[in-house]
C-alpha cells in the first residue's frame, strides 16, 4: 500500500534530475541565508516558493507529453492574449509595463511564454511534420517573433532574450538550415545599428557600461564592478560562508536575486563555482539525454529546448555577474530568490521528467 502511494508520487519523477535539482536548491537556500543577512523570513519565503514550484514540477511530470502537445496551442494563444492585455492595460513598475492585474493577483504573462513558445513551436513542427520547408521555419519565426516583440516592448530585455532563445533552440533542433542561421546572424549584425536606435536609454546604458563598467562606477556600472570585486576577492576557496564582505556590507546590489551568484562566488570561491558548474552540466546533460532518447519529435524538440533554455539562464546570469555579458534581468536558475522563475524552471524540468518517464512506460 505504502509502496503504491510512494509509487504514485515518484513514478514520473526522474531520480537523476531530482538529486541534481535538490542539490542546487539546497545550495540556493544556503546562499540565500547568507545573502539576505541571515533573514529567516526571506529563506522561509523561498522555501514556500520551492514547495509551490516542486508541486508544479510534479504535476508537469505527470502530464503525458501527448496531453502537453494538445495544450500547446491554447497556452500559446492565452499567453499572447495576455501579452496584448499587458500592452494595453498593464501596470507599470520600475519604468516597465510587465504586470497584469487579474483581480486576485498580478501576473507576468511573459513568464508563460518561456514555456509557451517552445511548446507551441515543438507542437507545430511535430504536427505538420515540418522539417525542412522554409515556409515552416518562416511560420515558426513568426510564432516566435510576435511574443518576443511584445515582451521586448514592455521592455523586458532578459525575458525576451530567454523566450527568443527557447524558440530558436526548437528551430535549430528541428533542423533549421545552417545557411539560414549564418545568414540570419549576418542580418542581425547588420541590423545592430538599427536596433541601437530602437533601444531604450536604459538598455543602451546597459550595453555601454557592459563594454566599460568603469565609465559609470556609481551608476549603471556599479552592479558589475561590485560583483566582479566580490568574485575576484573570493579567490580559490572563498571567504567562507557568511563572511563575504561585499555581500554582508551591502555593496552588492540585488544580491538575493539576480546577483546571488556573486555572493556564492565570494564566499565559496572558484571551487564553489566549479561545483555549481558541474551540477549545471549534469542537469543539462541529463536533459539532453532525455531529449535524445525521446520517442517523438515533439518530445525531442521540447525537451531539448527546455534544457537549453535552462542552460541559457545559467550562462547569461553567470556571464553578467562575472562581467562578460551585459546586465540583463536573468536569474540564476534554482539559486536566485524569486517564485516566478522557480516555478517556470521546475515546470520545464517537470516536462523533461514527463517525457522521460512516459516514454519509459510506453516502452515497458
Amino acid at each position, binding site marked *: 500500500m505504502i509502496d503504491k502511494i510512494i509509487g504514485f508520487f515518484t513514478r514520473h519523477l526522474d531520480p537523476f534530475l531530482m538529486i541534481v535539482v535538490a542539490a542546487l536548491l539546497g545550495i540556493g537556500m544556503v546562499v540565500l541565508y547568507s545573502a539576505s543577512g541571515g533573514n529567516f523570513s526571506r529563506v522561509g519565503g523561498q522555501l514556500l516558493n520551492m514547495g509551490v514550484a516542486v508541486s508544479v514540477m510534479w504535476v508537469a511530470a505527470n502530464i503525458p507529453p501527448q496531453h502537453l502537445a494538445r495544450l500547446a496551442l491554447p497556452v500559446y494563444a492565452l499567453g499572447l492574449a495576455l501579452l496584448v492585455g499587458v500592452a494595453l492595460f498593464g501596470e507599470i513598475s520600475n519604468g516597465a509595463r510587465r504586470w497584469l492585474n487579474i483581480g486576485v493577483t498580478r501576473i507576468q504573462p511573459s513568464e508563460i511564454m518561456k514555456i509557451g513558445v517552445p511548446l507551441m513551436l515543438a507542437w507545430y513542427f511535430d504536427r505538420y*511534420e515540418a*522539417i*525542412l*520547408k522554409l515556409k515552416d521555419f518562416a511560420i515558426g519565426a513568426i510564432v516566435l517573433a510576435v511574443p518576443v516583440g511584445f515582451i521586448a516592448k514592455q521592455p523586458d530585455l532578459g525575458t525576451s532574450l530567454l523566450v527568443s532563445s527557447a524558440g530558436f*533552440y526548437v528551430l*535549430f*533542433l528541428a*533542423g533549421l538550415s545552417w545557411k539560414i542561421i549564418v545568414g540570419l546572424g549576418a542580418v542581425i549584425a547588420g541590423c545592430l545599428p538599427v536596433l541601437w536606435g530602437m533601444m531604450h536609454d536604459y538598455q543602451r546604458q546597459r550595453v555601454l557600461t557592459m563594454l566599460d563598467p568603469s565609465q559609470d562606477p556609481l551608476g549603471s556600472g556599479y552592479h558589475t564592478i*561590485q560583483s*566582479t*570585486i*566580490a*568574485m*575576484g*576577492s*573570493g*579567490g*580559490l576557496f572563498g571567504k567562507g560562508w557568511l563572511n563575504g*564582505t*561585499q555581500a554582508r*556590507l*551591502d*555593496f552588492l546590489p540585488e544580491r538575493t536575486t539576480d546577483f546571488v551568484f556573486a555572493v556564492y*562566488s565570494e564566499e565559496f*570561491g*572558484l571551487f564553489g*563555482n*566549479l561545483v555549481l*558548474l558541474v551540477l*549545471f*552540466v549534469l542537469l*543539462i*546533460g541529463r536533459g*539532453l*539525454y532525455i*531529449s*535524445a*532518447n*525521446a*520517442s*517523438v*519529435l515533439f518530445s*525531442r524538440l521540447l525537451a*531539448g529546448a527546455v534544457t*537549453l533554455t535552462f*542552460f541559457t539562464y545559467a*550562462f547569461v546570469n*553567470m*556571464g553578467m555577474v*562575472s*562581467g*562578460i555579458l551585459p546586465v540583463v534581468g536573468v536569474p540564476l536558475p534554482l539559486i536566485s530568490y524569486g517564485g516566478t522563475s522557480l516555478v517556470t524552471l521546475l515546470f520545464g524540468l517537470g516536462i523533461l521528467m514527463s517525457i522521460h518517464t512516459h*516514454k519509459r512506460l510506453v*516502452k515497458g
Partner: protein
Amino acid sequence: MFFRLPFKWPFGRSRSGFRPPARGIEVSRGPSKFRMWLSRLPFKVPAGPPRSGFRPNARGVEMRDLSRELERFHWRLAVCAAGVVLLFFVLLLRFFYLQVIQHDYYMTLAEQNRISIVPVVPNRGLILDRNGVVLAHNYSAYTLEIAPKSAGPLDELLDQLSELVDIQPRDRKRFRKLLDERRELDSVPVRTRLTDEEVARFSVNRHRFPGVQINARLFRHYPNGEIASHVIGYIGRISEKEQTKLEERGVAANYRGADYIGKVGLEGRYEEDLHGVAGFEEVETDAGGRSVRTLRTTLPVSGNNLHLALDLRVQEIAERAFGKFRGALVAIEPSTGGVVAFVSRPGFDPNLFVEGIDSQNWDLLNNSPDKPLNNRSLQGVYPPGSTFKPFMALAGLELGKRTPDYTISDPGFFVLGGGGHVYRDWKKGGHGMVNLHRSLVISCDTYYYGLAQDLGIDNIHRFIGQFGLGRRTGIDIDGESTGLLPSQEWKMRRFKQKWFGGDTISVGIGQGYNLATPVQLAFATAILANRGIVYRPHLVRQIEDSQSGERRTIEAQPFNKFTISEENLQRVRNAMIDVNRPGGTASVAFSGAEYPVAGKTGTAQVVGMKAGEKYDEARTPERYRDHALYIAYAPAEAPKLALAILVENGGHGGSVAAPIARAVFDYVIMGKEPKPPKEAASPNEAAPAVHEDEHD
C-alpha cells in the same frame, strides 16, 4: 545506414515511432564527391550531420527516413552540447581570471570598499595665562549637519528643519557659503550649539530627514571675550587658500576631518603646536557609508598647551584703564622678555570668528572708524615723540657728546647752522638753564635738537638701534611692523636722496622720519631697564607637551647683550624717576606712588603744524589731536615691569597715558586693585585741564 556518428552516441539509441510518409518529397543526391574522397582516406573522418532527412526507399517511393532524421537531430543536439561545454569553459576561464589571476587586485578593492579611514580630529591645545587662567579652550556641543549628497532639495529641507530647530536667515547664508567652499567635507553644518531641547526635538523626527544628522563636535571658545583678543587671535574655518598651503607644506593629512585652523594672533602663530596630530580609525563601513564596527584606532594626539607670560588680570586692568580711548599698551617683564600685558584697544570678540563671522558683524568690525581689528601694539606705527629722549640722552653720554653737567640756556628755539631753519621748543620762551637731568624731567626739545646735531644721524641710528627700534622685535605673533629708525643709508635707499642736516634735528625729539610700534617702544624700555641685556619679547612662556606634560620654555636665554656704562644708565634713570616726581611731566599720575618709577612722557603729532602755528587742543577735532605716549619701568632700581603706552588722540602723555601705567604698576608691584571704575573718561568729553608744564 549510410552515416555513422563519429563517436558512440552516449545516450543510447532510442526507438523512433513510425509515422506515415511525410508530404514533402526530396530526391536524394547521394554522397557528394567530397564525401567520396573523404571515404578513401586511410583514416576515418567524421562524417558530419546528415544533410537530408529523406532518401528513396527500395521501391523508389520517396519516404521519410526516421533513423536518419533522428541522427540529424542527435547531431544537432551534439552541437548544442558542445556549445554548452564550450561556453561553460569560457565562464570557467573568466572565473579563473577573476579569482586566481586578479585575486589580489580585487581583494584590495574589496578591502577598500569595506574599510574606510576616518580621521579623528585632535583636541586643540589650550591657551592659559601665566597663572593658569584659561584664555582659549574647547567644549563639546551638538551641531546639526546636512550631507548634501544624500539630502533632497536643500531649501525645502531647511524649511522643514526650521520647524524643529531655530534656523536664522544668517544661518542659511552661512550654510550656503560653506556649501560653496566645501572642501572634502561630507556634511555641512547648518546650526551649531544646539540646545538640548532642539536636539530632542530633532531626534524624534530624524527619520523624516535622511542625510541630516546631529553630531557632537568640539568648539573653540574664548571665555574672556574682548580681553586680550589681539593676543589670542582666533581660529576659523580652513579656507581654500589655507588648504592649498597645507598641501604645499605636506601636512594636509594631519588636517583631514579638521574644520578649523588658527588665523591670527597666537592661534595663528602657534598653529602647529596647538593643532596636535590627527588620529585615524579604520572603520568597516557598509555601502551606505554607515560604520559597522571599528577595526583599529590610532588615537589622536592633542595639541600642546600654551602657557603665556601674559597675566590676564594685568591685561584686564590695563584694558579697563583705557576707558573709551583707543590705543595700545605693551608691558614686558625685563628680566625675561615675557609679555605680561599686550593691549590694543578697541578689541573684538574672537568668538564671532570661530564659526565663520556673519556679514553683519564683519561689516560692523571692519567698517568701524575705530578699526578694532587692527592690532595697534603690533602693527601701529607712531612717532615715538619725547619717549625717544632717554635713549638720545644715553647716546649723548655714552658717545661722549654730552657730560651730565653740560648746560644750555634754552631760548625756546634752536637755529640750525648760521641763521638757518628754526626749530621750536614746545614751550614758548624756553626752559631757561637745562642740563641733561632737567632736559628729561621737563622734556626740553631744544636740548635734544642740539644733541641730535652733535651726534649725527648715523650715530643715533647705530646706538638707538641697539634698543630694537627700526627692526621687528620678533615677538611671537605674526604681522609685526618694522617701524623706522632713519639713517643716511635708509634715506638714500628709500628716497634716493641725500640726508640733510636738518633731517637729524627733529629725529632728536622722536619726530621726523622716526616711527615705532608700541611693542618696539616697550622692548626698548625693557632693554633700558635690563641694562642692555636683550630678551626677545614673547607672549608664550612655555609650551606644555600634551603627552608628557613637559614644559619647554621659550626664549629662556638673552638674545643679545651690549654694554652700557652703569654710571650713565643711572643718570638717565634718575632723570626718568624725577619725571614722575613733583616737577616732572608725569608727576600728577604718580603722586603718592610707593615705589620709584622711571618713565618718560611723549606726544606724537598727528598733523603737521605750520611754523609758528600754535597747537590748540580744544580747537582740534578729536581725530587730529596728538597721540599721548608714555614709557616706564618700575620699580626703577629692580624693574619688574617695563611698558609702553600709546593713547590715540589722547593729547598728553602725562595726563592720559601715565595714569594707565600707574594702574598697571600699582597692581603688579603693590598688588593693588584699581579703584572701582568711575565713569570712564571719554575723548569726546572736554579735554582735561592742562597746565603748560604738563604739556609734554
